[in-house]
């Protein structure tokens, strides 16, 4: 599948991926992040049962302490 990740095209071997598998595959280890798929915010509790499909627009924000 091909997706948009933060406005850049990325290709994966699989047809779909759960959000958790996607994070593992990309080796994204940041603890705090926000993920939106096609404009919908995915809460942490749903990372296992939400899937990323071909053509999806995935937006990720990394949250750093400090303010």
């Amino acid at each position, binding site marked *: 599948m091909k997706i948009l990740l933060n406005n850049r095209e990325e290709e994966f071997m699989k047809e779909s991926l759960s959000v958790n598998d996607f994070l593992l595959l990309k080796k994204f280890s940041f603890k705090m992040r926000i993920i939106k798929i096609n404009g919908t*915010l995915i809460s942490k509790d749903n990372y296992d049962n939400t899937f990323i499909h071909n053509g999806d627009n995935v937006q990720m*924000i990394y949250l*750093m*302490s*400090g*303010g």
Partner: protein
Amino acid sequence: MRFSEISAHLSKFRVGIAGAGGLGSNCAVALARSGVGTLVISDFDVIEELNLNRQYYFNDQIGLMKTVALKENIARINPEVHVIIHQKKLDSSNISEIFSGCNIIVEALDSAAMKGMLIETVQIKMPGIPLVVGSGMAGWGRTNDLTSRKIDDTLYVCGDENSEVSDSLPAVATRVGIVANMQANIVIEYLMNII
């Protein structure tokens, strides 16, 4: 457009600011100088001496609630601004009530976990209300690593999304001030586009 027209337009709107530390106090002051009509500011902390290295407070305000001192400072800058303060720790049950009626909200909290909680709550419970997040502003220099990006119509992020504040890489006035003003700049841009 003349400045008087800009401030007259901004005076019609209400902006929420979650947190009155380095980001929130500086962002609030920039918005007040620009003439935003109403600021809703929430914070539960007291001013400490070490806050003065970057936050918009004065030495003689040490020990005051940040919300009370910021309201006073804004009144001294631009008494036209209506400032509503909430001395509360934000959680998922009180956010939509505290910031009800706001046209746009600024995330100016300290911990990454609290930022995440606020973003989730506003995005889910206040659909359509834009949120301007600050993430990654530790240390000094690296000015051009600081960016503001629009995720979609309801979410913006300012900062480098990379540098975490810690004891060895503290928040410094310059970078925090830049990000606070980037957030204020997005707020003004958003409000100026409302006809």
